C-alpha cells in the first residue's frame, strides 16, 4: 500500500471511531440522562442503566444524578416566637425527580443548591419564628422521670406543654418547602433539624440559671440532712429521758414495796411484845455504842453494883434493872 493509501485508511478509522463513540453512551445505576439535540431536549429522560444509542454529533447526553443528594444548611441564628435566639442547623435530602425540568430551570446542581438554600432556610426561619423554643426542642409531652435522689427544679418555661413538637415542626418545614420545589424538577425527600444551640450570650445566661438551679438543689439536700439529723437527735434525747425516768419510777416502786412488806413483818412480830423489843433493842444499842474511847460514869446505887459493897444487899431491896 502506498503512503497515501495508509493515510486514507487512518483517517477513515478515526472517523469511524469518533462516530461510534459519539453514538454510544452509558447510563450507570446512579445516573439519568437527558438527550438534547442542538441544545433542544429530545423525548423523556433515560433512566435505565446500561449502554444506549443516540444520533452521533447532533445529539448530546446530559448526565444527572439519580441518587438522593445532599443539602446541608449552614448554621443560622434565628429568633423563636418567645424571642430566644438560637443557632439552627438543618439538613435536607433531595433528588432530581424530573431531570428535564431540572435541566431547563436550573441547568446543574450548583443552581439547585443555591435555590434550596433560599427555600429550606426560608421555611425553617418562618416555622421557627412562629413557634416557641420548647416546641422545637421537645417531641412529646412526656413527663420527666425524676431521679430518686436529685429532685429537680424546673423552669416555668420548660414546663410548658408543647402543641406540635420537633417532629411535627420538621414535617411542617418539609411540607412547606415541598410545595415550591416541584417547579424545579426536584423532590424533597426529608428535612431534619440537625442541631439547635443557644447563641453565646443566651448560653451564658442558661449556664448561670443551671448553676443556680443546682445550687438550690444542693442547699435543699444539705438542709434536709441537717433537719433529719436534728430530728433523730431529738428523738434520741426524748427516748433517753423516757428510759431514765421510767427506770427511776420502777426502782422507787419496787423499793417502796420491799420497805412496806418489811415494815409489816416487823410490826406483826414486835407487836407481840413491844416492851421486850424495846429492851432487846436497847441492849443491842449499848453493845454497839460503847467502845474503848467511851467513858462510863456509874453510881454504886446502880442495880449492877448492888453487890459491890455487900453480898446481902440484893435480898433487902431487889429491883429489876431496866
Amino acid at each position, binding site marked *: 500500500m502506498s503512503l497515501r493509501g495508509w493515510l486514507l485508511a487512518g483517517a477513515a478509522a478515526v472517523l469511524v471511531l469518533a462516530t461510534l463513540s459519539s453514538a454510544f453512551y452509558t447510563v450507570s445505576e446512579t445516573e439519568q440522562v437527558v438527550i438534547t439535540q442542538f441544545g433542544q431536549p429530545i423525548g423523556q429522560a433515560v433512566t435505565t442503566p446500561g449502554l444506549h444509542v443516540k444520533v452521533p454529533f447532533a445529539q448530546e447526553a446530559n448526565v444527572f444524578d439519580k441518587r*438522593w443528594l445532599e443539602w446541608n444548611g449552614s448554621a443560622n441564628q434565628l429568633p423563636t416566637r418567645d424571642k430566644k435566639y438560637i443557632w439552627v442547623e438543618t439538613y435536607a435530602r433531595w433528588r432530581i425527580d424530573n431531570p428535564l425540568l431540572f435541566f431547563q430551570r436550573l441547568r446543574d446542581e450548583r443552581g439547585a443548591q443555591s435555590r434550596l438554600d433560599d427555600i429550606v432556610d426560608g421555611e425553617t426561619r418562618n416555622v421557627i419564628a412562629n413557634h416557641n423554643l420548647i416546641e422545637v426542642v421537645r417531641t412529646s409531652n412526656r413527663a420527666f422521670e425524676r431521679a430518686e435522689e436529685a429532685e429537680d427544679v424546673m423552669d416555668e418555661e420548660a414546663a410548658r406543654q408543647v402543641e406540635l413538637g420537633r417532629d411535627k415542626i420538621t414535617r411542617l418545614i418539609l411540607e412547606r418547602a415541598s410545595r415550591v420545589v416541584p417547579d424545579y424538577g426536584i423532590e424533597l425527600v*426529608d428535612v431534619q433539624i440537625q442541631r439547635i444551640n443557644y447563641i453565646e450570650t443566651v448560653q451564658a445566661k442558661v449556664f448561670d440559671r443551671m448553676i443556680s438551679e443546682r445550687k438550690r438543689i444542693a442547699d435543699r439536700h444539705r438542709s434536709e440532712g441537717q433537719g433529719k439529723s436534728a430530728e433523730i437527735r431529738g428523738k434520741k434525747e426524748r427516748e433517753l429521758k423516757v428510759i431514765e425516768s421510767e427506770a427511776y419510777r420502777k426502782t422507787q416502786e419496787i423499793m417502796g414495796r420491799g420497805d412496806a412488806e418489811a415494815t409489816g413483818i416487823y410490826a406483826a412480830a414486835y407487836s407481840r411484845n413491844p416492851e421486850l423489843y424495846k429492851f432487846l433493842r436497847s441492849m443491842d444499842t449499848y453493845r454497839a455504842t460503847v467502845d474503848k474511847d467511851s467513858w462510863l460514869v456509874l453510881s454504886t446505887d446502880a442495880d449492877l453494883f448492888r453487890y459491890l459493897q455487900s453480898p446481902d444487899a440484893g435480898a433487902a431491896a431487889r429491883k429489876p434493872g431496866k
Partner: protein
Amino acid sequence: MANYGSGFDQDAFLRVARETRERLRGSWRWVWGAIAVIVGLATLSSAYYQVEPDEVALVTRFGRFVRTSEPGPHTKFPFGIERVQKVPVQRQLKQEFGFRTIHADIQSSYHRDEQTAAESTMLTGDLNVATVEWIVQYKISDPYKYLFKLRDVDETFRLMAEASMRTVVGDHSVTELLTVGREAIAAKAKELLSNLCRLYDNGISVQQLVLQDVDPPEPVKPSFNDVNQAIQERERSINEAWAEYNREIPRARGLAEQKIEAAEGYAVDRVNRAKGDAQRFVALEEQYRKAPDVTRTRLYLETMSAVLPAAGKKLIFDDKAKGILPLFPLGNAVGEPKP
C-alpha cells in the same frame, strides 16, 4: 458470566503474538511482539479481580448492575466494559460522635476539638445544655442500596444519627440524661435512627447505639458535682445521727434495767431480813414468856459484861461517900500528853 473472561487468557495472546511475529519478519517484528505482550498483560490485569472474605463485589456492565460476587478470585470483561465496586458487608462499622479515637490500643487515646464539641453539645427537654458523646455500630445489610441509593451515604448517616440523638435528648431532662434515663435514651435514639435508615432506604442496619460520656457543660460541672456532694453530706449527717442514737439508746436501756434489777434485789433483801429478824424475835419472845424475870436479868447482865470491858474509862462513885473528892487524873484519862 465469569467464563467470558476466560477467553482472554495468556495462551491465546501468546499464540497471536507468535503468529504476528512470523508474518512480520524484520525490524518491525520485535516492536509488534512487545505491543502484543503489553496488551495481553493489560487485558489480564483488567479482567481479574479478587474479593476479600469480609466483602462482596458489585459488578456493573456499561454502568448497569449485573451481578454480585462472593469472596474469592473472579474474572470480568476488561477495559471498563465491566466495573467492580467492593462493599465490606461483613465488617462491623463504627461512627463516633463528640470525640475521635486517634489510636485504639490497650490505652486508647482520643481527640476532641471544636468540631466534636459542636457534635456533642445539645439542648435537653428542660432547656438546659448537656454534652453527649456516643457511638453507633452498624453493618451494610444491602450493598446495592448502600452504593446506589444515596450519593454521600456515610456523611448522611452521621447527620441522621445526630438528628435522632438530639430529638431524643430534647425530650428528656438533664437529670434523666445524666442518671436514670441513659439506657432508655440510647434505645430510643437507636429506634429513631433505624426508622430513618428504613425511610432513606440506605441499606444500613444499625447494630448498636451506645452512650459514652454524658456530662453537663464544663462551666456548670462544679455545681453538678456540688449536688452529688450535698447528697453525700446529707446521707452522712443522717447516718451519724442514727449511729449516735444506736450507740446511746441501748446503753441507756441496759442501765435502766440494771437499776430496776438492783431495786428488786433491795426489796427482796429488806423482806428477807425482816422475816429473819421477826422469826428470831418471835422465837425469843416465846421462850422469854416462860421466865420473863430471869431471862431479862440474864440478858441485861450479859450485855453489861460485854459493854463494861469495852469502855476505855470507867468511873464508879458512891453517893454515901460524902466529903471525899474523888481524884482522878483527867488529863491522862482523856489521853492528852503533858510535856
